């Protein structure tokens, strides 16, 4: 039918299935309901430390839902309910008595659309630090600079940290949001299609950034772009929708294997663009 199956190349930069990586998070039999509707069902998945894990799959299969269950952002949606458990360093973040604010500090998030706050670049990055109770100006300056550097934005904004964060370009805004997220030194960073609102050049800078960020952080990324998943991630989870419209895990594995030698026909069809 299709003349050629465009097999996606896996870049040499991506780490092979590193057996020595520790499990940072563990998704354990997770189902999420919106009111009576089950959006995802019984998903089991590890997230390895200092690795990039990608969620791919057709629209509406529950990638965002799964991602948001990793830092309890679904708590904010009335009627949303989770079954199963999500372990962070072996502890269930949904256990009673867990402090959701602390969980969100440890598991940060970057959203699909850049969402800088309506304040200066500096204040955007300092926002989380002030929340933590940091008062010392010198330390604040230092961490703001360090975070902006890590997000590859420092050179652009260093001469005018007082300008509004909303006055930056889309790609710069997204990097500002990344700087803001990493300033509070989370352990895990969740990214929901962080480049889908960006042009190819800005996308590449973010992808490069992800590669360097994983040295310090554990990263989970949702993407619709197969090449992106192949380029940046070490592990990939492919989700699809069942007949009851609930999302389920079709296949999970090291990105290289999943893309070059998928075990399931459905996965192969999806990554070669024959379905989805």
């Amino acid at each position, binding site marked *: 039918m299709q003349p050629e199956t465009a097999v996606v190349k896996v870049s040499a930069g991506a780490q092979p299935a590193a057996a020595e990586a520790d499990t940072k998070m563990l998704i354990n039999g997770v189902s999420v309901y919106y009111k009576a509707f089950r959006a995802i069902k019984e998903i089991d998945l590890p997230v390895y430390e200092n690795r990039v894990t990608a969620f791919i799959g057709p629209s509406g299969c529950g990638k965002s839902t799964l991602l948001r269950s990793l830092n309890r952002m679904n708590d904010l949606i009335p009627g949303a309910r989770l079954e199963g458990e999500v372990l962070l360093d072996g502890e269930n973040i949904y256990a009673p008595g867990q402090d959701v604010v602390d969980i969100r500090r440890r598991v940060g998030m970057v959203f699909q659309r850049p969402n800088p706050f309506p304040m200066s670049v500096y204040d955007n990055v300092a926002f989380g*630090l002030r929340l933590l109770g940091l008062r010392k100006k010198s330390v604040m300056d230092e961490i703001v600079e360090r975070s902006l550097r890590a997000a590859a934005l420092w050179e652009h904004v260093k001469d005018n940290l007082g300008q509004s964060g909303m006055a930056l370009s889309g790609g710069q805004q997204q990097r500002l949001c990344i700087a803001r997220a990493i300033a509070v030194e989370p352990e895990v960073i969740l990214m929901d299609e962080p480049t889908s609102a960006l042009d190819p050049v800005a996308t590449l800078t973010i992808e490069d950034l992800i590669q360097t960020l994983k040295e310090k952080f554990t990263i989970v990324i949702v993407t619709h772009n197969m090449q992106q998943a192949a380029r940046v991630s070490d592990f990939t989870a492919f989700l699809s929708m069942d007949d009851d419209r609930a999302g389920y895990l079709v296949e999970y594995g090291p990105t290289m294997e999943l893309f070059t030698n998928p075990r399931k026909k459905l996965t192969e069809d999806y990554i070669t663009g024959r379905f989805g």
Partner: protein
Amino acid sequence: MPTESVYAHVNLESNYRRRKILNAVMLSLTGLTVLVAVVPLVWITVYVVIKGGKYINWALFARLPAPMGAPGGGVLHAIEGTAVMVTLASVIAIPLALLGAFYLLARPNTSLAHGLRFSTDMLAGTPSIVIGLFGYAVIVVVQKHFSAFAGGIVLAIIMLPVVLRSAEEMLKLVPAEMREGALALGSPEWHAALKVVLPAAMEGIVTGVMLGIARAVGETAPLLFTALGNDNYEIGKIVRSGIRHHQSVGKILGQIFAQPADALPLTLWKYAQQPYQERVQQAWAVAFVLMLFALGINILARARLAYRRRKLYG
């Protein structure tokens, strides 16, 4: 550049403890606020229901007032007067307010828009008795008589800013992308406004309209100089006499608006000060009816919203 962690400089534990205490304090404060808001409402409602409920009877809704001091009679005149004047006010104010709100949405920064916003704000802040005085000066004095028409006009002036500004706020909440989506399909601006933006904002607009109506129904002061009051106001009587004299529909309608009229809050205000016990009791009954009306309008508005939401979002 030193790479010291932020956590070397903050005490997370004490920060969290402070946050939790603050959280608890704020939560209790909000709980207190709820009490402060709910207690008076419940109190007033219960009080009015107890004082007024027992004087509710059929005659209250079906009869004109009995002569001073005589028992029996009702407030049909006030119910009909309120209905006539609020209807007139709604027919005038709601379309104007919606058009104004759409204008503000489509051309938010013209000087006309600024003027409109400024004047509606001023109007909303004007004491209603002043608006009544205005109605007296430009309608009653000119026509040389008090009338339901004059009352309806001043009520329209009072409703207009309430409905306009709430409709504007609701329209502004509709994402710009939605309107632009329609415009990008070649939809003219009025069409996009009517077919896409208005339905999206409908919930909130209807609530605003209902609040405007409730406001108009509850007004007393501006009616003092315009509708004045009329113990014999009865639409049925006007229609019957019109038919007897073979008058045209227009003429009869004119009669309905040309006469001085009464209104529920106006009657409440007058009756409450009279020395006759029957009248004071009826004042409580009217208070009860007004209260029921306000609650009813709120419940209706909410039910409508819930229904629409279910239909829109499954």
